[in-house]
């Protein structure tokens, strides 16, 4: 006998709608449950991916080539010589859609006529930063750095405001050259950027790489080559690790080292790994909450039809047949619930919450955790599959309880009962 014979399916379907209110109520429970699973996980994932993206965007990249000493002592002594050449060589190793950004990043002082403040000076190739780091995104004010602009400087909006500066103003930047001498140079503020982290805004200033190299009389130097994998699934460990190995092979002997973002941001990587576990726990919790209702509803439906089951048994249906019928009914219930919930979730994520949720009122709190101010929900197929999977598997398991019950009714018993 085929499992899904048409008649069983029909019987189950009709039985489901014998008590529309009851079915609707339990469907609502299932739908609310699954929506909460999917939508909350979408926000959780959005928050987490925002966090990862912010960190990677924050001049980290997916892979970074550095002098290993630089991480301990970020001074020009631990630089990369002939960085452009190395970057070009590494570029050949990687697919075309990979972007490399060469940067010279050193501590320094920014001076205005009224104040001096410690900053991180980053020399960049503006074109190479597009799509790689936050500085490659449109500015908040002003104009981007032009490649040949030796005196242009980009500043964080936060720092700009704190120092009472404006676009077009002159500032003097000082840093230390290889001999330990201070070198300063005048720059004009061309634009200001906004970063997710206020801390970044107050700390980082950007100038052209060439101009920074000239200032420090260190032509061709950089302190890092940041690599961004654009379309590749950057969160997948394998891809990044694979590239890191290949790059390190090439770097052998140069005293440089490539590191994947998971090593660069170990804390965040660990958090991501935990995230899936947290989500699964939440799914199961929500399921249990609705599982009780599911079991109860099906149980009621079964008790109500005790007489019919007795009759069916009397007519020669085996108990396995009864189990099957009840299970098909449960399956219908779950499938309808899932379909509705998935549709609603999709609608919620893609339409209602399309523009994200603004967490601005927790300003200092979200900054502390590196969360974006606006959280956009991210629908991940794996979360949807996991939510639906949890519901179907556990749902059928729960449905088995009333089904087994129904199978136990004997014809005599049921007749006597009513």
């Amino acid at each position, binding site marked *: 006998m085929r499992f899904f014979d048409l008649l069983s399916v029909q019987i189950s379907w009709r039985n489901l709608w014998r008590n529309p209110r009851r079915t609707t109520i339990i469907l609502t429970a299932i739908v609310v449950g699954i929506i909460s699973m999917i939508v909350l996980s979408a926000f959780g994932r959005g928050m987490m991916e925002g966090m990862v993206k912010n960190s990677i965007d924050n001049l980290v990249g997916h892979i970074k080539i550095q002098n290993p000493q630089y991480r301990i002592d970020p001074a020009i002594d631990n630089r990369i010589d002939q960085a452009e050449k190395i970057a070009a060589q590494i570029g050949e190793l990687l697919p075309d859609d990979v972007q490399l950004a060469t940067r010279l990043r050193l501590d320094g*002082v920014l001076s*205005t*006529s009224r104040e*001096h403040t410690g900053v991180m000076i980053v020399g960049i190739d503006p074109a190479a930063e597009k799509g790689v780091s936050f500085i490659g995104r449109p500015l908040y004010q002003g104009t981007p750095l032009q490649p040949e602009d030796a005196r242009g400087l980009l500043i964080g909006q936060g720092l700009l405001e704190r120092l009472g500066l404006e676009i077009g103003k002159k500032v*003097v930047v000082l840093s230390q050259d290889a001999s*330990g001498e*201070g070198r300063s140079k*005048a720059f004009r503020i061309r634009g200001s950027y906004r970063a997710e982290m206020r801390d970044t805004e107050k700390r980082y200033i950007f100038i052209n790489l060439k101009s920074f190299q000239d200032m420090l009389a260190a032509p061709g130097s950089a302190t890092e080559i940041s690599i961004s994998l654009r379309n590749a699934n950057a969160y997948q460990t394998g891809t990044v690790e694979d590239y890191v190995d290949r790059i390190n092979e090439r770097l052998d002997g140069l005293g440089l080292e490539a590191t994947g973002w998971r090593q660069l941001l170990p804390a965040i990587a660990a958090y991501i790994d935990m995230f899936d576990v947290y989500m699964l726990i939440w799914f199961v919790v929500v399921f249990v909450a609705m599982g009780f209702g599911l079991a109860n509803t099906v149980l009621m439906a079964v008790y109500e039809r005790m007489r019919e089951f007795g009759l069916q048994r009397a007519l020669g249906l085996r108990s396995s047949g009864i189990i099957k019928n009840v299970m098909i009914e449960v399956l219908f219930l779950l499938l309808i619930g899932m379909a509705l919930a998935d549709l609603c979730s999709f609608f919620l994520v893609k339409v209602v919450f399309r523009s994200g949720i603004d967490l601005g009122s927790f300003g200092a709190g979200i900054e502390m955790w590196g969360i974006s101010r606006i959280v956009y929900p991210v629908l991940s197929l794996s979360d949807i599959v996991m939510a639906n999977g949890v519901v179907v598997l556990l749902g059928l398991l729960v449905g088995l309880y009333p089904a087994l019950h129904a199978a136990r009714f004997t014809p005599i018993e049921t007749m006597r009962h009513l």
Partner: protein
Amino acid sequence: MRRIAVASFVVFLMLSSKSQAADGEALVLVQKAFDYWRGLSSYSEFSMTIHRPDFERTMILRGWTKGRSDGLFYVLQPPKDMGNGSLKKGRQMWSYNPKINRAIKLPPSMMSQSWMGSDFSNDDLAKSDSILDDYDHAVVEREMVDGHQVFTVESIAKEDAPVVWGKQILRVRDDFILLSEQFFDEDMELVKEMTAEDLVEFSGRIFPKIWTMRRVDERDRFTRLEYHILEFDIDIEDRLFTLASLKSKKRLQ
């Protein structure tokens, strides 16, 4: 602003740089003014008073300068700080403390910090970029004061000069004595000013005895220097300006 300090310490900041023979009387005037101060070398003893709304403190210092970039200063008073020294050589600077008997090299990032808690920065002592190079000068006013002609020179910062000021206004007497120096930001708003008062004669030169540096926005915060002894063009050996010399205590007597 480094200039300020320069002037105030007369001494060493102002080097007669080989400024390109800029024509124009303003440039000559500025150049001469700084030449007048600088001498080839100098020895001085002066008190430095740091004034704050709720607090005031006076130190007495002794210093030598030579040429464009070398300088050595010691604190004589108060006794607690006695023997603390600063050595400036080229663009580098060391700080010496007798208690721990160490000389510490200041990293470039510390150069903009206050020198000994005053309104002068380490940079003011150490930097020797020439006002002559970084600014374009023009005489904007002449007047007669106490029988001397006084020139007001407006020095506008050159576009690419690594200076934070938009312009400076100097008042120079016809005998090349600098009377005041004002510092303006890029919007030509006055930020701070240094004034010289009480002209007296030090070893044959007329020289302002009191120099005051104050910020415009906080009138009750200023630093005042008062010269007690000032000698010019004395013979100083180069080895005075070395780390070993900074650490030796014999110059305190």
